[in-house]
């Protein structure tokens, strides 16, 4: 075409030293680089910082407050004691004794709110009536339960089935596992979707694609957000554990132990499964306004299993089914393990099923993602994203 053949300067023409060419980057470090940017970009946003702090405070409050409220709210109970009547309280935790000279002074202290209650020697008349108690408790408006308990003789209790899970836990544990997975999946999924569309909308994606393959972008995005989600869950867990230990509820921890380890494994796979679907769905649209509608099906995939597990946690049949369906397995199987309802091979089988479907879904998602990223304008139809070549 051109007949004008001028001497073409070799590499390193005027003003340049030897050509500098970096080694071709390998996929692993590239994915890590993309993931790192994803994490940094989000950690730096004010909304992420604020919501994380609030979330941690709520968890802390949820763990610590019940024990504070249920126990000795507002410090030790001050008790006025007359003569030797309060001997039973000596050395008891949670009570502070205030010596009083006689019953009248003790009653006055109670009325003046100088003490919370008073313990007097029981009047001869009442002790004679056979209540068994040799003291009289004086309080202002209602009987001080803790004090009465401390002064009572507690009968020996024998449990016929000490290992059974308390009824409250049967509800709480699925709820907790479910909530953690639900929040992480929904939160990160939405984040992945938004960032994907944002890259399309701001067109930065075309430059990125000129540098790295689409699947590297998708992998980095999922990995980055997974790291964030797992980091958040770990922070929540740490806060909860510290809270439980500090408030002396650490016996609960030993109960949860092994199922939590399983939960982590299921969580990671289940998360990848959903994250890939989020990324692929979002890649179909070009504007943030359209994200909501395209994410509807995925959102149901997250919510339905969650509600299923919470509502049917006592129904063995439903739970068994749910523990094998990839979308609900991450919550249902650890819950069954927690209640000791699953045989040893069941979590393994469920995990294999989950891993297999995750691999398939990730591959399909990467295909959709690759084909849709550069298509802007109207929403890309799923079928055409799958069928057409790139």
């Amino acid at each position, binding site marked *: 075409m051109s007949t004008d053949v001028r001497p073409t300067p070799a590499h390193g023409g005027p003003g340049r030293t030897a050509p500098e060419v970096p080694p*071709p980057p390998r996929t692993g470090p590239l994915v890590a680089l993309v993931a790192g940017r994803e994490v940094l970009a989000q950690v730096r946003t004010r909304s992420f910082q604020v919501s994380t702090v609030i979330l941690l405070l709520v968890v802390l409050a949820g763990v610590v407050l019940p024990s504070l409220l249920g126990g000795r709210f507002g410090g030790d109970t001050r008790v006025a004691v007359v003569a030797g009547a309060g001997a039973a309280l000596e050395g008891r935790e949670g009570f502070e004794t205030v010596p009083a000279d006689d019953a009248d002074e003790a009653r006055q202290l109670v009325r003046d709110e100088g003490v919370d209650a008073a313990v007097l020697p029981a009047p001869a008349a009442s002790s004679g009536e056979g209540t068994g108690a040799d003291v009289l408790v004086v309080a202002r408006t209602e009987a001080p339960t803790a004090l009465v308990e401390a002064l009572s003789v507690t009968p020996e209790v024998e449990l016929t089935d000490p290992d059974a899970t308390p009824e409250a836990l049967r509800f709480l544990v699925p709820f907790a596992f479910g909530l953690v997975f639900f929040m992480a999946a929904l939160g990160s999924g939405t984040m992945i979707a938004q960032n994907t569309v944002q890259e399309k909308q701001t067109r930065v994606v075309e430059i990125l694609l000129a540098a790295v393959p689409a699947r590297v972008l998708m992998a980095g995005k999922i990995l980055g957000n997974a790291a964030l989600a797992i980091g958040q869950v770990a922070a929540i867990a740490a806060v909860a554990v510290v809270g439980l230990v500090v408030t002396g509820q650490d016996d609960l921890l030993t109960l949860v132990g092994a199922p939590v380890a399983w939960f982590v494994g299921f969580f990671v796979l289940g998360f990848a499964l959903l994250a890939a679907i989020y990324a692929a769905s979002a890649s179909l649209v070009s504007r943030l306004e359209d994200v909501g509608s395209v994410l509807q099906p995925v959102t149901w995939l997250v919510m339905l299993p969650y509600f299923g597990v919470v509502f049917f946690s006592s129904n063995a049949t439903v739970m068994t089914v749910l523990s094998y369906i990839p979308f609900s397995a991450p919550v249902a199987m650890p819950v069954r393990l927690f209640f000791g309802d699953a045989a040893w091979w069941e979590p393994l089988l469920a995990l294999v099923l989950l891993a297999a479907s995750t691999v398939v879904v990730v591959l399909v998602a990467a295909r959709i993602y690759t084909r849709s990223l550069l298509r802007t304008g109207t929403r890309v139809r799923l079928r055409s994203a799958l069928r057409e070549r790139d």
Partner: protein
Amino acid sequence: MLVLEGIERSFGGRRVLQDVGFTVQRGRLTGFVGGNGAGKTTTMRIVLGVLAADAGTVTLDGTPLDAGRRRRFGYMPEERGLYPKMKVAEQLTYLARLHGWDAEAAARRAGDLLERLGLAERAGDPVETLSLGNQQRAQIAAALVHGPEVLVLDEPFSGLDPLAVDVVLGVLSDTAASGVPVLFSSHQLDLVERLCDDMVIIAGGRIRAAGAREELRERYGTRRHELVAAGDVGWLRQVPGVRVESFSGGSALFEADEATAQEVLRTALARGPVTTFAPVVPTLGEIFREVVAGPQDAGSDLGTGPAPDGTAAPVRPSLQEVSR
């Protein structure tokens, strides 16, 4: 050099590129000219491998391009885009790292480039806070930061003020001078005319002309001369071999071959003083119109519909409006 041969591409049955082939030489700036929807962006995307061709080859120094080689290209897409909230220098560093530079080298390259593009003091600002012209410079920096082996820029000068055009041109010329083939598209024909060494003209998905700027001028534009004399030059119409294009009293614009033109000059001098006698070099706009709406394809449309790949066509003055 970068060579395209026989590139074909259709979108949903609509053929947008047909037997597209041209050459981008090392060390030269090649301008890629065409109307909206003519196929420039699609061609560039195919060069970059962002889009696949249905047929045809793109080779660099005779070697077909693979994905790895293409990743060493520099690309400024038609649709500008950087992460709005990311800082300029950080963003460029990130892009250089995506191309394989280690963190330190990437940061150094980003800093140097921002310095050269006059953007150094905005290095720490988020992209979204930059003016459009500065965003454009950042975008150009994004195409250059990794030290590309081939540079492909889609409308790099749109939205730049004249000073910025000079700065960017300087950087592009340096890049070309270092032996990098540089291809850029533009609809600002006067700019292309001033800046590039080679030109490629595309219309309706086909290459209509390609070659060195001067060579195209020779080949396409009609050679015309301007004559301004003291007296009336109406006699020109009677000279054989002369076609008068415009005429008013003492001045005329006429077509004639070189010998006839010299003859005309002699006649004019014999008749009285001549104030102006000069060849009129055809503008790129004229060449473009001739090439695009030439006899071989009369009534070819510039294609002002939506871009073939489904992207909304940006509203721009058409080529003819600009060049007129």
